[in-house]
């Protein structure tokens, strides 16, 4: 576990996790030199996500507000997470989650492209009982952000 030492919005691609008795929150942010529309398209075209994202093995459904998607990740390949899309603000903010917690993706346009931030908070009254069984998200978050940056910048630079 890491303590909160660095700014989660620093854009350096390093994951930061904070813990309380009843919750855990992991965040990562990374500057991406690409148009926000490219980053948004990569994040929200569900069936294409496993192609560029090495942390997602399957993502089924349509990423639209009110829809439910089914996600399988490398963190636990046997489990399918059924996640409801709670917020969908194009090129700005996407939130999905279940009753355990929510994942928030935000895009903030800046001079070089976009600051991508992803955070997930899980918790509840019973959290202390199962906390030790939930793997760390840090490495997976860092890989997710790095994969997104690589793919988005490749597209941005493409001449084809």
């Amino acid at each position, binding site marked *: 576990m890491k303590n909160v030492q660095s700014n989660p919005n620093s854009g350096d691609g390093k994951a930061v996790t904070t813990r309380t008795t009843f919750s855990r929150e992991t965040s990562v942010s990374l500057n991406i030199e*690409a*148009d926000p*529309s*490219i980053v948004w*398209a*990569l994040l929200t*075209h569900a069936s*294409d996500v496993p*192609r560029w994202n090495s942390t997602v093995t399957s993502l089924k459904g349509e990423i639209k507000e009110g829809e439910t998607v089914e996600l399988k990740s490398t963190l636990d390949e046997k489990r399918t997470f059924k996640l409801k899309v709670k917020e969908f603000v194009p090129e700005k903010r996407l939130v999905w989650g279940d009753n355990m917690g929510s994942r928030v993706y935000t895009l903030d346009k800046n001079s070089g492209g976009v600051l991508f931030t992803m955070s997930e908070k899980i918790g509840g009254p019973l959290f202390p009982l199962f906390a030790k069984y939930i793997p760390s998200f840090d490495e997976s978050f860092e890989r997710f952000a790095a994969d997104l940056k690589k793919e988005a910048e*490749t*597209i*941005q630079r*493409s*001449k*084809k």
Partner: protein
Amino acid sequence: MTTDQLTSVFETFRGELKSFILRMTASVQDAEDIVQETYIKANSKIETFRGESSLKTWIFSIASNLAKDLLRAKKRWPENATDIFREAALKNHQFFQEAMQIRQTSPQGNFEIKEHIAFCFTCVSKSLPLEQQLALLLKEVYGFSVKEIASILNQTDAMVKYYLHTSRSRMIEIFDHRCSLINKQGICHQCTELNGIFNPKQKAQEELVKIEMARDAQNKNKEELFDLRMKILQELDPFESGAAELQLHHLEHNRQVMEKYLDEKE
């Protein structure tokens, strides 16, 4: 611009437009209808053409919108569409009888593997999201620039780049997995299988060495092999080639099979 001028320019790329729409819709009837409708629409709106793009780009934009209107409500085809067609064809005696008749009597009834490669791409690319299929064909087969495609699709350059990159990556992945011409472990052999049926005296290997993509498969990377596949499409007019009637008969069969398959799945 006058109607005569429009007609004269339109005729210079009518064939390209028709083949583009055929590759989008997989339907000869739809291709003919949309080309005709495009001309009528262009003629009626010619005073709105301000020359901000070329006339060809403007006309492809009208045609693309008509194709989108037609296809938006229809489901996309699955990636393994050609497996579904094969299974349906094997159960359909009449299909082979008609095909053999065309093979034996039509001047456009040849079977050529490279024609089938182009035909196969038409079916497989219909598994892409609609905008991606449009962008990919416009760029890779019909040579439009990113800016021109952005104008045709009314999208930003960035989104067009996204469509192109994603669709190309997806097609490369599918063909690498499926096509035995470029990957020995490929699961689809339909082009050589059909060659054996329609050209029983011909040796498939002798035909394959004439096709750069198949001949050089071991020495080229996936990107280069995809470019060679696109080169085959660029060089073929699906309405004018020596295999046109046979392939269009095949395409019509496949489209009908897929429509039924998708209806039944609902």
